């Protein structure tokens, strides 16, 4: 384990490939890196019934530092795809694994995004999203996270920019990790 600071920037390409391979080893069908400056934020809000909303869906309720503004501070990310037959939870698991790997390799600010509404996946039997109650935290810390689409990132454009050519919005789920 290395002491901070991070590995030199010249090694980032190798590290991004390592992350793509890690996601594929964990069940992703395709994975590529992307420069964050190429990601398109749409500004289109998602629909979601009131009784299904969570802290992260349909929009991230983090008003003090809007998440779109923060994500653009990153330079590189990786995007992976899985067949939706594997289920949404698998996207969260791969994202968490890749993000965790970044942390232990001294990319301590790496942040992962998943797919869908975390409440439907982890808290479907609860009456509410606990994180939306003032003074309470998330019931599933370290695994719940916003979806890519809740951060106003266009999935089709993201797949295109990250060379995930077999993307089909009805059959493919995307996850991503912002690395550095």
């Amino acid at each position, binding site marked *: *384990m290395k002491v901070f600071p991070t590995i030199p920037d010249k090694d980032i390409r190798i590290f991004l490939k390592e992350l793509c391979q890690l996601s594929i080893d964990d069940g992703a069908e395709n994975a590529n890196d992307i420069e964050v400056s190429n990601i398109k934020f749409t500004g289109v809000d998602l629909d979601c019934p009131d009784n299904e909303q969570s802290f992260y869906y349909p929009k991230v309720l983090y008003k003090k*530092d809007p998440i779109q503004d923060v994500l653009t501070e*990153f330079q590189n990310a990786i995007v992976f795809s899985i067949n939706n037959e594997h289920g949404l939870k698998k996207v969260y698991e791969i994202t968490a694994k890749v993000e*965790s790997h970044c942390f232990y390799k001294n990319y301590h600010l790496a*942040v992962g*995004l998943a797919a869908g509404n975390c409440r439907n996946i982890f808290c479907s039997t609860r009456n509410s999203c606990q*994180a939306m109650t003032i*003074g309470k935290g998330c019931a599933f810390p*370290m695994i719940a996270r916003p979806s890519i689409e809740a951060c106003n990132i266009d999935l089709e454009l993201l797949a295109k920019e990250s060379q995930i050519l077999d993307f089909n919005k009805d059959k493919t789920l995307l996850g991503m990790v912002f690395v550095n």
Partner: protein
Amino acid sequence: MKAIEIFEDIKQVAFKGGAKDVKMISTKDIVVDKRVRLKCMVPPCSQSGLCRHCPPHGYSVDQTRQIIEKYNSAILFSVEVENKIITGSKIGQAHRSHKLDDKGELAVLGGYFLLVFQISALIKKKAKQEGLKAHSFAASNCKEVVCYFYDDCRVLAQKKKCRHPDLSMPSMESAGMDVFKMAANAGWPIYPIGEKSCYSDVPNGLLCGLVLLS
């Protein structure tokens, strides 16, 4: 008393309080990054949202920058944690469940975090006695350190006064300060430590606090 002597006295307060090392830095050397506060929220830290200082509450990154601009210098200090304590196998689960583990690992680790809060509070008190303005930051979440045995943060849940106004303060990270970079810039070895960390991989844990001065 000369400024250098005042700062030396303040440093001694930190050392006597239990700091491993203390540095006087310029506020220009404080590293603020929007991504640090995001990291408290995505994925959610088990402590996020529990106190008035931790995201989504507390200072926005822009507010932090505005506060820092009002000060000239800062005392940055570290508290070292023994590797076997900070990598305790039961700490992660205890954190998430908000229940103390039967080996007492979380309670022992909590003592080190409390030390950071105490040292920051002592520095602030000393600085004010010397006629300086001071603004303090600690490490972690004050509800989970100072008010652990209460159900909630009284300020958030009951909209009442804080139980420990002298000790309650934001952590450096909750205000958007990149503690990893600042510790590294101070020449202190700091390691990424999580549930997967084994004590044999990590020589020591390091907690940091900061007090702005002018």
